[in-house]
């Protein structure tokens, strides 16, 4: 287990410079931006006095290093700055958008993992036959298609042509619902965005899992399980799926980054009131503190997810710490 501890320490040691890099990038962006950083931080609508206050507040007249230190200090206290358009702390602006985004991204992550696993089992058990080829073709097509295009086509067909799903928003604005009705309303609004967000993820999970499964199905313990007379379903789900699932969890960090990018697009497409919409309106208004706040939050989420998954997969598969050290 010593190797495991050392591996854990290594991963932890890696998360720190990565975090530092992300913070440094966002600090550098403020100062590399064309024009006065005070304008970048406080918007271009202010008067001279306002900029003077901003300069003093962010210490923009002090040496760069001192500014960096105080920037990091503010971030450590959870201060992401103030939106100059809304005059409110960026942290709370982002925080109130998180539930909607979490609902969308979280559902997509869970659904894509489950559906992806089912699809992979289906394809791997029909290796080389029509079902497998179809799954392969669809996932190749999905990989190549931009999320917004799938979304636009889906809106054209399912929402506008057949009127099956609402086009916009998270709730029906025409009437206020409570209890189960409210839940069903949100679920109804959630179907299209989540499907579109999950589609590409299903493809990548299925692809990753399928090749692992095919290898696994030829291994000795599967032959053993089969010769014990277990039913094929049990062989596939209870015995074969376990090990190939590990890499699927191992890439969750990367998938999260991918999913969150997709979330922004899908939120814009469907008018979903999450972080992505906040980000877009902030970008259109050049509300830099919000833009950087969202960037920091998302990057750090991805870093944290990667770290968590590294540690978790070490716990699930004790060999990980050992082999990496040997190299």
């Amino acid at each position, binding site marked *: 287990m010593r190797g495991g501890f050392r591996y854990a320490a290594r991963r932890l040691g890696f998360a720190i410079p990565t975090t530092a890099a992300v913070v440094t990038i966002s600090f550098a962006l403020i100062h590399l931006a064309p024009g006065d950083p005070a304008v*970048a931080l406080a918007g271009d609508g202010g008067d001279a006095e306002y900029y003077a206050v901003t300069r003093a507040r962010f210490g923009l007249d002090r040496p760069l290093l001192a500014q960096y230190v105080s920037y990091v200090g503010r971030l450590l206290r959870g201060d992401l700055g103030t939106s100059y358009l809304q005059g409110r702390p960026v942290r709370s602006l982002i925080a109130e958008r998180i539930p909607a985004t979490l609902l969308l991204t979280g559902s997509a992550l869970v659904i894509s993992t489950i559906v992806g696993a089912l699809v992979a089992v289906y394809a791997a058990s029909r290796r080389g036959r029509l079902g497998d080829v179809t799954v392969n073709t669809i996932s190749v097509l999905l990989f190549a298609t931009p999320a917004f*295009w799938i979304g636009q086509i889906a809106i054209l067909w399912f929402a506008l042509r057949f009127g099956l799903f609402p086009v916009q928003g998270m709730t029906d604005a025409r009437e206020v619902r409570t209890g189960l009705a409210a839940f069903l309303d949100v679920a109804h609004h959630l179907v299209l965005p989540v499907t579109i967000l999950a589609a590409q993820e299903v493809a990548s999970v299925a692809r990753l899992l399928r090749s692992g499964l095919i290898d696994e199905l030829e291994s000795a313990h599967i032959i053993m399980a089969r010769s014990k007379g277990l039913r094929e379903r049990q062989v596939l789900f209870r015995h074969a799926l376990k090990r190939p699932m590990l890499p699927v969890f191992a890439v969750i960090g990367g998938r999260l980054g991918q999913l969150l990018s997709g979330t922004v697009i899908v939120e814009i497409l469907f008018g979903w009131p999450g972080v992505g919409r906040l980000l877009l309106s902030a970008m259109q208004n050049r509300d830099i503190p919000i833009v950087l706040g969202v960037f920091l939050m*998302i990057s750090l989420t991805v870093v944290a997810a990667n770290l968590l998954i590294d540690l978790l997969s070490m716990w699930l598969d004790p060999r990980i710490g050992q082999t990496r050290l040997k190299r």
Partner: protein
Amino acid sequence: MTGTVSKVGSVIEPSIPLGREPRAMMRLLKKPTGVVGLLGCAVALGVGIGAPYVSPYKAFAIVAPPLSPPNSTFRMGSDALGHDLFSQVLHGARSSLMVLGIVATLVLLIGTTVGLLAGSARRWIDDLLMRVTEIVQIVPRFFLALVVSSIFGAGLTRLALLLGFTSWPTLARIVRAETQSLIERDFVLAARASGATRLRVLRREILPNVVPTTFAYLGLVVAQALLIEAGIGFLGLGDPNTVSWGQLAGDAQRYLRVAWWLPVFPGACIALTVLSLNLLADAVADIVIRRT
């Protein structure tokens, strides 16, 4: 360049085919995915280069009645301002091509250099380079691109450069792994024994053997970059002075209810180009990487 490698390699280790595949092109054309991929990429390249000559109108010329559906004159219909969508789509290929060119060049240069260095240098240099690679890989590129376009303003070249400077890690890792396995081979030992310097070994023995693999992965990396560029354009943060497929799709969003052709064609072009790149990369990979 390859001559030396093949000669040395074939003398010592005849079982391992080295150097450039002499009939790689023929083998590529024997695969359906290779043919489709190559054809798609060729069409995109041709349209991108030839757009000003073959397009019926200029990209920003107002020539059509607003929001007219596809017909014999305006083959893909027109937008709310009366631009001919077909001409715009043709011109949009140029933006994709530019992104493709810049990203591919930067990724090849940086990825190969970092990979070769990390794969052949001392342990601590390798560790350092891999740390940097991991950090670059972990930063979400789409969001970085969004932030940079909103702070520095929209610009196609800037976006392409940014994507190029952040998309190389995958390639670097692959080149590193290849280098590590090649450097132990007999033909490299032979070269070193005959007094070749480190740089010469890297350049003349390792590099030519790494190149085919890099090309296989380059297609995938560039395709991803194209999708990110399209996403940025879709969000309306693309360069206002150029036409791009992503932007066209984004502009279409407001007219979804009245003009189905506006979202359908630009998105299809992106999908087809990315698909061609993926298929081509896949076919190349099948040829150069011996899958067991």
